[in-house]
C-alpha cells in the first residue's frame, strides 16, 4: 500500500529532550533570578524597613541561623502532607472505581460526595481539633479531606471515559470484564487520574499549614505564626519559601511518576512533529 512511501521521521533523543527542556525554561529562570536581584537592590536603595520587606539576603542569613529548628518543623509538616495525601490516594481511587462501575454506588454515594464537596473544608479544621486533639491526626485528616475530592472526581471521569466503539471492539474479542479493565479502561483512565492527583498534591501543602494554624505546637504553620507575632518578617519569608518548595517537590514527584506511568500521554501533549500520510 502507499503510506510506506513516506519515510519515518527520526525521533528526538533523550539528551536532546533534556536540552530542549532547559532551553524552554531558561527564560523563566532568568526572569526569576532578575526579580530577586531587583528586590534586593530596591529594598536597600529605597531604605525599606526590614519588618515590612526584608531583602532576600537577609531572609537567607536569618534562615541559616535557625535552620535546625526550621528544618525540624519542615519535616513535621512534610510527614503530615505525605500521610494525608497517601490516605487520600488510597481511599479515593478505589472509591472512584466503585462509583464508576456500580450503578448503586453512583446513585447513592456519588451525589453525597458532590454535596460534601461544597462544604468549605478548611472551616472543618477547628472541629477536627475537638474530635482529634492537637496532634498529628487532625492535620493528616485535613490534608486527606482537601486532596480527596479532586482525585475522586477526576478518577471517576477517567474510569467513565472509555469510548463506546473501543469497548464494542473489545467485546468482539470475547475478553472478560477484568481483562478489558486492565488492558483498556485502566490505562485510558490514567491521564485523568493523574490530573486529579496533581490538583490534590497542590492542595495538600495548603491543608497542612492551615491545620497547623488552627492548633499545634510544631510544624511550619506553627512557626510561621510565631515569627509573624514577633514581627520577624525575614523568618516569615523563609518559611513561605520553604513551604512553597515542599509543595513543589510533592507536585513534581507526582509528575515524575506520571511520566513513568503514562509516557505515551505526556509525549502526546508535547508532540511537535506533524503526522504524515
Amino acid at each position, binding site marked *: 500500500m502507499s*503510506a510506506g512511501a513516506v519515510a*519515518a521521521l527520526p525521533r528526538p533523543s533523550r539528551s536532546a529532550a533534556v536540552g530542549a527542556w532547559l532551553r524552554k525554561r531558561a527564560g523563566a529562570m532568568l526572569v526569576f533570578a532578575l526579580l530577586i536581584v531587583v528586590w534586593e537592590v530596591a529594598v536597600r536603595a529605597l531604605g525599606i524597613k526590614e519588618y515590612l520587606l526584608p531583602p532576600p539576603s537577609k531572609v537567607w542569613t536569618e534562615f541559616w541561623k535557625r535552620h535546625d529548628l526550621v528544618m525540624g518543623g519542615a519535616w513535621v509538616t512534610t510527614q503530615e502532607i505525605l500521610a494525608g495525601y497517601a490516605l487520600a490516594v488510597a481511599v479515593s481511587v478505589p472509591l472512584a472505581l466503585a462509583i464508576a462501575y456500580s450503578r448503586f454506588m453512583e446513585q447513592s454515594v456519588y451525589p453525597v460526595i458532590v454535596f460534601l464537596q461544597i462544604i468549605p473544608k478548611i472551616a472543618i479544621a477547628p472541629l477536627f481539633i475537638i474530635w482529634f486533639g492537637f496532634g498529628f491526626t487532625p492535620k493528616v485528616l485535613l490534608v486527606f479531606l482537601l486532596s480527596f475530592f479532586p482525585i475522586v472526581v477526576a478518577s471517576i471521569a477517567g474510569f467513565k471515559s472509555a469510548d463506546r466503539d473501543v469497548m464494542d471492539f473489545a*467485546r*468482539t474479542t470475547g475478553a472478560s470484564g477484568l481483562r478489558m479493565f486492565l488492558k483498556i479502561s485502566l*490505562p485510558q483512565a490514567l491521564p485523568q487520574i493523574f490530573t486529579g492527583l496533581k490538583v490534590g498534591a497542590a492542595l495538600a501543602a495548603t491543608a497542612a499549614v492551615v491545620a497547623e494554624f488552627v492548633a499545634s505546637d510544631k510544624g511550619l504553620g506553627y512557626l510561621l505564626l510565631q515569627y509573624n507575632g514577633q514581627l520577624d518578617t525575614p523568618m516569615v519569608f523563609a518559611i513561605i519559601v520553604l513551604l512553597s518548595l515542599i509543595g513543589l517537590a510533592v507536585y513534581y514527584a507526582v509528575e515524575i511518576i506520571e511520566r513513568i506511568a*503514562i509516557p505515551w500521554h505526556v509525549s502526546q501533549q508535547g508532540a511537535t512533529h506533524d503526522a504524515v500520510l
Partner: protein
Amino acid sequence: MLKVVTKAVPAPADGDAAAARRVYVDLRGVAKTYRRGHGAAARATHALEAVDLAIREGEFLAIVGPSGCGKSTLLRIIAGLHPASEGVVEVGGKPVAGPQTNLGIVFQSPVLLEWRNVLDNVLVQLELRGVDPRPYRERAMKLLAQVGLADFADRHPHELSGGMRQRAAIARALIHDAPLLLMDEPFGALDALTREQMRLDLEALWMATNKTVLFITHSIDEAVLLADRVVVMSPRPGRIEQVMDIRIPRPRGLEARRHPAFVEAAERITGIFLARGVLHGAGQVVPPTGGDPP
C-alpha cells in the same frame, strides 16, 4: 495456528459466481425498535423494519444509505453488539446471541489505544482474546506491510495521520484471520484523496484474502466501486430498497468510474434516493422538514 496472510482464492468476477456460494450471514425479518420513556408516554423509534439479507461467503457486500437509515445498527446486530428486536440473525450457520468473536471490526474512528504503538495495537486483538501475541508478531508485521505501515510499527497513534490510523485499525481487524470483516463507514472521517487511496488499497487487500466483508457507507461511489453487491437502504424506518449486483471486473482501479456498469448502478442508486427524498434534484425546492419519505 498461524495461517498465511494471502490466500489465492480468486475474487468473484461477477454476481453469478458469488450466488453459487454458501450464505455466511443470514438475516430474516430483522427489526430494531428503540423505546424511550415509560407507560403511556413511551415512544417507539423504528430503526430497522423487517430486513431480509443474505451475505455469501467470500462476498464483498456494501450497504449504502443516508444517515439514520439504520445501516450501522444492522452491522451491530450482526456483530451481536445490539440485540435485534425481531427476526433471526445467523452468522456461520449459528444464531447470534451476544457479541460475536469470530470476526474483525472496523469503525469510523480507528479506536486505537493511545498508549500502545501500532504493532501492539494490532496485537491487542490477541491479548484481549487471552492468546499469547508473540507468535503473531511476524504475521502482524506482514499485515502492517500490506497496509503500508511497515515503517510505522513502533509509532504511537498520535504520530499518525487519520488514514494511517485507519490502516492500523484494519490490520488489527485482520490479525486473527477471522472469516468475516465488518466495516462501519471506515473511511467516513478521511479526506477525499486519502479515501480514494484507501478504497483502492482495501480492494487489493480483500482480493488477497477470502474474507466475507460487510462494508457500510453513505458514499454511492464507494459502495459501487468496492462491492460485489450493493444494498440500498432508505431511512425511517430503515429498510432495504434494492439489492444490486455490480459486474465490474477486478481489480477495479481508478478506471472503474468510467465503466458502464458503474455509471448505471450509481445512477440507479441516485434515482432511488431522489425518489425517497434523500436527495433533491437541482432547482427542486427542498421541503423544510428534510428528507422523510412520504
